[in-house]
């Protein structure tokens, strides 16, 4: 097994799964009935993407594990998603700001992965890019409307961005996994993604009459299994049945 290749795909799958799990929390509780529908729809795309990626990761690992083994019977130290994905949902401004930052990241990432030397990953990216384009249009629209909406929504959106800004540098870190993926033309250079991402985000923030937060710290660790306290709770909910009744079919 190529361990780095496995971890690269696993990380993509974990990001989709953990963010998707967070998005489902809005089902039946969002500010508008239309949003219940739209949020469920986007969450569904994330769960679907997580299934494809985790199945493929399991295949690369070659130890007979399934997508569900990876999702439901790993501990939080074995999850390699970005910390940004696991943060609690907060208010609707926080939720949509996070979606926008990650949708934009995924948009540029999947655009590149379409031409990956890994054919499976390329096929997954081709499907994901269609959904992600829609997700990003939607979340950008929310950042604009809330940022340039009422005084209260402007304030909330600014607070949301400040609150998550320290977690954004993690999206563009480069470790030996990434270095090998770049060398094998499997994945893009995170630095390149960073410049693309930053330009889009800056433009939207400006258009939304908001200001780009100042980065004070870089908080990271997720990609090496070092998570926030929120992660254990997320997993204890998500993994509840598989942990209570190990090894059964559902």
């Amino acid at each position, binding site marked *: 097994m190529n361990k780095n290749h496995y971890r690269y795909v696993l990380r993509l799958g974990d990001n989709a799964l953990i963010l998707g799990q967070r998005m*489902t929390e809005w089902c039946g509780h969002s500010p508008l009935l239309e949003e219940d529908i739209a949020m*469920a729809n986007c969450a*569904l795309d994330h*769960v679907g993407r997580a299934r494809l990626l985790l199945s493929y990761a399991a295949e690369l690992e070659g130890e007979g594990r399934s997508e569900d083994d990876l999702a439901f019977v790993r501990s939080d130290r074995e999850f390699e998603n970005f910390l940004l994905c696991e943060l609690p949902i907060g208010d609707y401004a926080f939720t949509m700001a996070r979606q926008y930052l990650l949708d934009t990241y995924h948009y540029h990432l999947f655009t590149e992965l379409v031409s990956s030397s890994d054919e499976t990953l390329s096929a997954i990216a081709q499907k994901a890019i269609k959904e992600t384009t829609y997700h990003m249009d939607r979340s950008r629209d929310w950042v604009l*409307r809330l940022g*340039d*909406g009422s005084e209260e929504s402007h304030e909330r959106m600014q607070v949301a961005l400040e609150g998550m800004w320290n977690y954004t540098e993690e999206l563009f870190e480069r470790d030996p996994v990434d270095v090998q993926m770049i060398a094998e033309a499997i994945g893009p250079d995170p630095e390149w993604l960073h410049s693309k991402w930053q330009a889009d985000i800056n433009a939207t923030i400006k258009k939304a009459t908001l200001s780009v937060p100042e980065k004070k710290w870089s908080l990271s660790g997720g990609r090496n299994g070092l998570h926030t306290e929120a992660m254990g709770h997320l997993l204890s*909910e998500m993994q509840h049945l*598989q942990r209570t009744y190990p090894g059964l079919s559902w």
Partner: protein
Amino acid sequence: MIFTDEQGQFDAIIEAEEKIEPRDWMPEKYRLNLVRQMSQHAHSEVVGQLPEGNWIGRAPTLRRKAILLSKVQDEAGHGLYLYSAAETLGVSREEMMNDLLIGKAKYASIFNYPTLTWADVGAIGWLVDGAAIVNQISLCRTSYGPYARAMVKICKEESFHMRQGYEIMQVLACGSAAQKAMAQDALNRWWWPTLMMFGPHDSESANSQQSMKWKIKRQSNDELRQKFVDQTVKQADHLGLAIPDQDLKWNEERGHYDFGPIDWEEFARVVKGGGLCNDARLEARRTANDEGQWVKDALMSYAEKHSKSDVDQVA
């Protein structure tokens, strides 16, 4: 034939099994009856997201999570169609929603029962959506055009809802002893409340006689309930699960299953607010509404600002 009087024309449309459309004259009581029934139906779809939503985060496999998510998403969509259909009667979604939040409008009482185990998700799909289908198929022939068309659209999605629920029960019923017990327990808890979904016996239901005359309702509560029992007994047998009713047995003469007495006191109590989840369900909807207010305000401000600046640009 041309009718000079509006009532005569309305009666003729009903008589001819044609549809009343929003632009047609209709008796005020017919309109109010429909507003009540359609808004109640819409509220049920929206509140109906909550009991199953309670398990999306804990769905046991990613496949089940995806299926449940798309089912709950459908229910929100049904709510949306139904509110739009009801709005053709001259009442706004906000007014209808507000009646729900202040406790004036009702929603299906079944959603005031808690979902305690994963098998409850199966039981809801199988039984509750199964009962909804029986009712909604009948409503495809309702006399109000927009309602009938909404029902046709919704029925197409409901069969997937029932199938996924039945499939969950099937897997559990063939699973470990604990899973099988979980499935039986869910059937035990959901069976009677599902039978109550069809409403009081015909002899007790004054409302529904007028609805039948207007062809808003096409089959009586008892007819629909019987139809549901007849089709569900076979399914339970197939699953190897026991319906919790000692009086349930085939009646050769009637060509239907006989079943035991329904606990109408429990029904009345839950309708009036005394179910385990009445407070929680309403509270969840109120919180979504209250905490969503700043979002709705923001959308308004944004729209105002931007329509103004568009005008400025043109000028």
